[in-house]
């Protein structure tokens, strides 16, 4: 059993935000925060880069639309051209409807699976679940985890700093 890090529980989002800001200022880099709901700006403070997911979603939309429009075009122009009273084979206003639906479907699939992939979910084991103070639901608490891999990490010092920042409990997390 090796040490994964130290987890501190705070009573409210403001205390957590304050703790994150202070710890970042002290030079800690490998930290993660946990909360029962989205706390605005927390990820930025933890040094998260701007997510590229919106581009993934746009890509999904384009792939969906192009694929379906291409399929339709292939079917009416190459595979099964059917001349009905000289009407154009490429009747784009009618084809745009399905292409639009395909764009939405492609974007939604990219959004859903892109979110899971970027968050590396499903991930059924994570060391943070070993902490007895950490339950995602029961306490309604806000947690800050400092990883032992952080270059600034010194077990005793880090625990003392977290306690002085107003943590209700500070606990070691086994990997």
């Amino acid at each position, binding site marked *: 059993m090796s040490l994964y890090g130290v987890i501190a529980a705070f*009573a*409210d989002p403001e205390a957590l935000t304050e703790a994150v800001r202070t710890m970042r200022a002290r030079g800690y880099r490998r930290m993660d925060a946990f909360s029962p709901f*989205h706390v605005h700006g*927390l990820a930025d403070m933890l040094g998260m880069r701007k997510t590229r997911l919106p581009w993934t*979603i746009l890509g999904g939309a384009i792939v969906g639309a192009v694929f379906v429009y291409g399929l339709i075009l292939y079917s009416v122009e190459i595979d099964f051209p059917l001349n009905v009273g000289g009407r154009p084979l490429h009747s784009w206003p009618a084809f745009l*409807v399905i292409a639009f639906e395909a764009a939405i479907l492609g974007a939604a699939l990219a959004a859903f699976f892109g979110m899971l992939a970027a*968050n590396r979910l499903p991930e059924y084991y994570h060391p*943070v679940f070993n902490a007895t103070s950490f339950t995602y*639901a029961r306490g309604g608490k806000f947690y800050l985890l400092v990883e032992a891999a952080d270059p600034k990490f010194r077990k005793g010092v880090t625990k003392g700093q977290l306690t002085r920042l107003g943590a209700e409990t500070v606990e070691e997390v086994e990997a």
Partner: protein
Amino acid sequence: MAEAIAGKPGALPVLRGRHDLPEISGRISAIVLDGRLPRYFWTAFFACFVFVLIFLYSITYLISVGVGAYGVNIPVVWGTMIGNFVWWIGIGHAGTLISAVLLLLRQPWRASINRFAEAMTLFAVAMAGLFPILHLGRPWFFYWLLPLPNTHMHWPQWRSPLVWDFAAIATYASVSLMFWYMGLLPDLAVLRDRAKSRPAQLFYGILALGWRGSAFHWARYQTVYFLMAALATPLVVSVHSIVSLDFTFAITPGFHSTIFPPYFVAGALLSGFAMVLTIAIPLRWAFSVQDLITLRHMDNAAKLMIAAGMIVIYGYASEAFFAWYSGETYERTMMWQRAFGPYAPLFWTMLACNGAVLQLLWFRRVRLNMPVLFAIALIINVGMWIERYVIVVTGPSRDYLPSSWGEQSLRWLDFGILFGSIGTFFALVFLFIRVLPAITIFEVEELAGERGGAR
């Protein structure tokens, strides 16, 4: 801290009373985890289950005997199946509106009702999706609408609204499912952590995908959730517009009208909000969550109903006006026959329900009186079904050839399938309330946190 939650004085609060986070998640998840639901819940469920069996029997009968078994025949070949389809898909749309459009508009009151509204969408779409298939002469060939390689070397007719419809409904069902599941993820993690029994921990644990509420996860989650909402909004409008194109692309009198897409979308919202109230009013009473689903929600839903309803009334007026203004004999005759012909009783009932009864919602006292509001919601549900049915049957029944005029006859099978689908829908809603949290835990917690009601 009720004042802080209420916002400006005189306004109805979104949440009532003071809540802390464990209390909210505990109360909502206890409905699922303790599993001790009141006896009337199961009584109601089994009443619905009887209708599930009727539904299964009716479908089996329909498939084994053929579409002649219910009352469609030349000239009215679109009957209750198409009416049911349009009605159910419309009901689904209010759920997406609540979850997506109100999210984008940052309306805090959506938080406690969006979960079951989305579930309602899913189940309504599931019901709706069955009807076009049951309407086919040979339902087992429905997959011919898909562009699959086959020995006939045929492709679907891409220029047909029926194929668009298939694409739209399939997309809508998939996107609704993903949006719903994504909203469920954090709540499934709450259930996983609160569950006492091993099977429940495994069940919710596997579904929660290991969600742990990391700040990095939340940031991506929030970005994607908003973008999904932004995608769902045009999708909803496009789905019901395409449904209406099924009608308008035909030159049948009464179908061939440009008002149809917006008129159908507004009708969808009206019937959808009526269904939201039909479910929410008993739900908040049965589980004593009047402080989470407050009168504010009921009031706002009723206001949206009257907004959508007035557009529907404009649609009725516009249909009648343009039938007359077009100068077309057949259009005029059809409109006259709709109002004074064999379907006149249904037509005037529809106007009484969706036109007259709706006007009661202008009064605040009516909107805040739950029994009356529930009754109005039921009446609107009925009125909207009649509207769909009247639109579907009156056109073909008064076609271009007076010698071939005729009406649809309703058989037991029409009613078996309609009421069977309603029972199945509610049975699914009951199961959903039993298995998954019907109120979004994390959004209500966030709301309580923001409003200073929690620490």
